[in-house]
């Protein structure tokens, strides 16, 4: 990538699987994950970083996939909502908590929320309820009114969703 080009060959790991493709430089990571890699759980809402629906996990950190180019994820480890549950379908504690507290209605914003909370909960150091709630400022939900999401976070913080 030492000379300016408009097309690149990229390779990344998505949900544990290697994926390579030739893409336009201007393609966002979100569009690449949906249109080229087929992970339609990545929901593109506003496409300018406000709504948070497209949040995925890149190298362990929750990021907006509409604000990152696919070419920038070359060599990265990417996790979308499809890669959160175990292979046998057992839900991740984050997903269990959201489900049990009815924290979704239409579900458009949910994949982003799942990715943010999963990224926060993956280290050895567990995040506090306040940290998780603060991270929710990066997500807009237009139907549940957030109370279910708050309860799910309370449940997660208390370790009741294991």
């Amino acid at each position, binding site marked *: *990538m*030492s*000379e*300016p*080009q*408009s097309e*690149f060959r990229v390779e990344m790991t998505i949900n544990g699987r290697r994926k390579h493709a030739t893409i*336009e*430089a*201007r393609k*966002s990571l979100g*569009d690449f994950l949906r249109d080229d890699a087929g992970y339609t759980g990545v929901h593109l809402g506003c*496409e*300018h*970083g406000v709504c*948070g629906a497209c*949040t995925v996990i890149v190298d362990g*950190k*929750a*990021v*907006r996939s*509409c*604000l*990152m*180019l696919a*070419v*920038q994820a070359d060599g990265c480890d990417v996790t979308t909502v499809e890669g959160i549950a175990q292979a046998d379908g057992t839900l991740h504690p984050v997903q269990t908590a959201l489900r049990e507290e009815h924290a979704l209605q239409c579900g458009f914003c949910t994949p982003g929320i799942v990715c*943010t909370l999963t990224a*926060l909960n993956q280290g050895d150091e567990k995040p506090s309820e306040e940290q998780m709630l*603060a*991270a929710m*400022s*990066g997500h807009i939900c237009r139907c549940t009114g957030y109370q279910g999401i708050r309860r799910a976070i309370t449940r997660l913080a208390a370790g009741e969703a294991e």
Partner: protein
Amino acid sequence: MKPAPFDYVAPTSIENACQVLADAGGGATVLAGGQTLMPLLNLRMSQPFILLDINKVEALKGVSRAQNATRVGPATRQCEALASAELAAALPVLTQALSHVGHHQTRNRGTIGGSIALGEPAAEMPATAVALGAVIEARSVRGTRRIPAREFYLGPYMNVLEPDELVTAIDYPDWPQGHITLFREVAQRPGDFALVGMVGALVIESGRIARAGIAWFGMGPTPIAAVQAEQTLLGQPIDAIDPQTIAELAIADTAPFDDHHASAEYRRTVGRRIFARTLGEALNIRKAA
């Protein structure tokens, strides 16, 4: 909502990055964290011919010591700066301001230098650099120059950088241990751009203000240093300071505008109040200590 086509390049050294900028003759835009630039690209408000990604230039990352200053690499991510114990000890108000920059998810990509170079008038990082007296180092194939943050901004998203110049460091001068920090902002929800905000630092010696650096954000076309307030504070015994009077002087330096979030009058009214309250609280804490 897709960017116009561009060529992309991601060099690994400052020299190569500067060469790309020089060769592009003004047609290149620097991509750091992309948390403000990518929306501008997606909305086609920005349509560069070449996008120069500096995320692979390791020499532009990290926090280090410079002469009487803390040097922050412009490509240092906001989340890393926020977690830096060195920054929290040396420049506590920078850490405080960082916690208000965007959201957790955008701080994971966004950089200190990107925010400073872009110069959104309502953003925290440009105003913090102005308040603390930071110096911005810019390099091009023609050479290196050092620009005080107070002389850096010309208007919204406009600065004095030439098209071939790259920000290579932000040097925040040392402030003595135990200095007073000032920070307050009003935004519609945490992480949104501030409607009104102020940031600053004060040093007290023998009961008098010995050094003051204060700036506004969201109160005009650029971050604005509260110069009259700073100059009036200097030398004053802290017991004699009337926060309301200083706030009036600070407001006199602003040039707020109307937009669909708030009127200029609202910004002035709220600004006056948060300034007086923040200064008053900081001094009362100090008097009591």
